[in-house]
């Protein structure tokens, strides 16, 4: 598999996240990620897309965009929302500070972005020029996963 680029545009409805997670599962399996890492990828993208829809685009028709760059050893995923009319980006220093200060095990919300940091190999979150938020995450095959895939040709992605 060379470097491939995939674009997905979703309406701002939570229902559409699930089919994306199913697609990512298959993609991650093809690359050779183990089951635990695939679950991590799905959970991280669920959290990011949920934020993008609930806080970054709910109530308008802009939707969200998911860009995936894939090669035979890693997945780079960008989730982009264009902000809401009244609030703009949900990711500001003030909001992050507020979430951080209020975070506690018995809080119902505010855990998602911290989970994404734990689950991904790299993460970058920043306001974008559209008035919304970009969240970029990277998942790389571990040495063990790469070795396992390379010794089992049935797991190897097609060239």
């Amino acid at each position, binding site marked *: 598999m060379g470097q491939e680029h995939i674009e997905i545009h979703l309406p701002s409805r939570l229902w559409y996240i699930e089919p994306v997670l199913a697609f990512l599962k298959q993609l991650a399996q093809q690359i050779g990620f183990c089951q*635990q890492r695939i*679950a991590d990828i799905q959970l991280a993208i*669920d959290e990011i897309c949920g934020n993008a829809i609930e806080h970054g685009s709910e109530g308008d028709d802009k939707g969200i965009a998911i860009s995936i760059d894939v090669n035979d050893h890693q997945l780079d995923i960008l989730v982009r929302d264009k902000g809401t009319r009244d609030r703009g980006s949900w990711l500001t220093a003030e909001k992050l500070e507020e979430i951080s200060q209020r975070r506690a095990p*018995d809080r119902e919300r505010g*855990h*998602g972005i*911290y989970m994404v940091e734990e689950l991904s190999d790299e993460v970058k979150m920043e306001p974008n020029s559209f008035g919304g938020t970009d969240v970029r995450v990277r998942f790389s095959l571990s040495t063990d996963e790469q070795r396992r895939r390379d010794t089992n040709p049935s797991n190897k992605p097609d060239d």
Partner: protein
Amino acid sequence: MSNGSMTVRENSDVTVIEVQDDLGSYVASDLRENLEDLLGSKTQKIIVNLGSVQHINSTGVGAIVGAAKRIRQRGGDVKVCGLADNIKRTFDLTGASSVVEIYESESSAISAF
């Protein structure tokens, strides 16, 4: 009672919500509604059985944590059971493992009330 993604049933004086679908952002709102309905009734003992769930996000965990906090104010509790390893991992990542009691099986969760 069943709404497709979960079943609500009685086991003596314990109400069991058995979740049959993965608890992503969409289905998590169903769980929240079911729990809100139970909080509006006289039910004091609730078990959320996650034995068929392969995926849960922080919204789903948050719904359980929120319900547990509210029902404890009137002397009740919400316990969870049947967590696969990656479901337990989500409870650990959010810190919910330290807030909600987790049991291997439904019977052990019922016995703990």
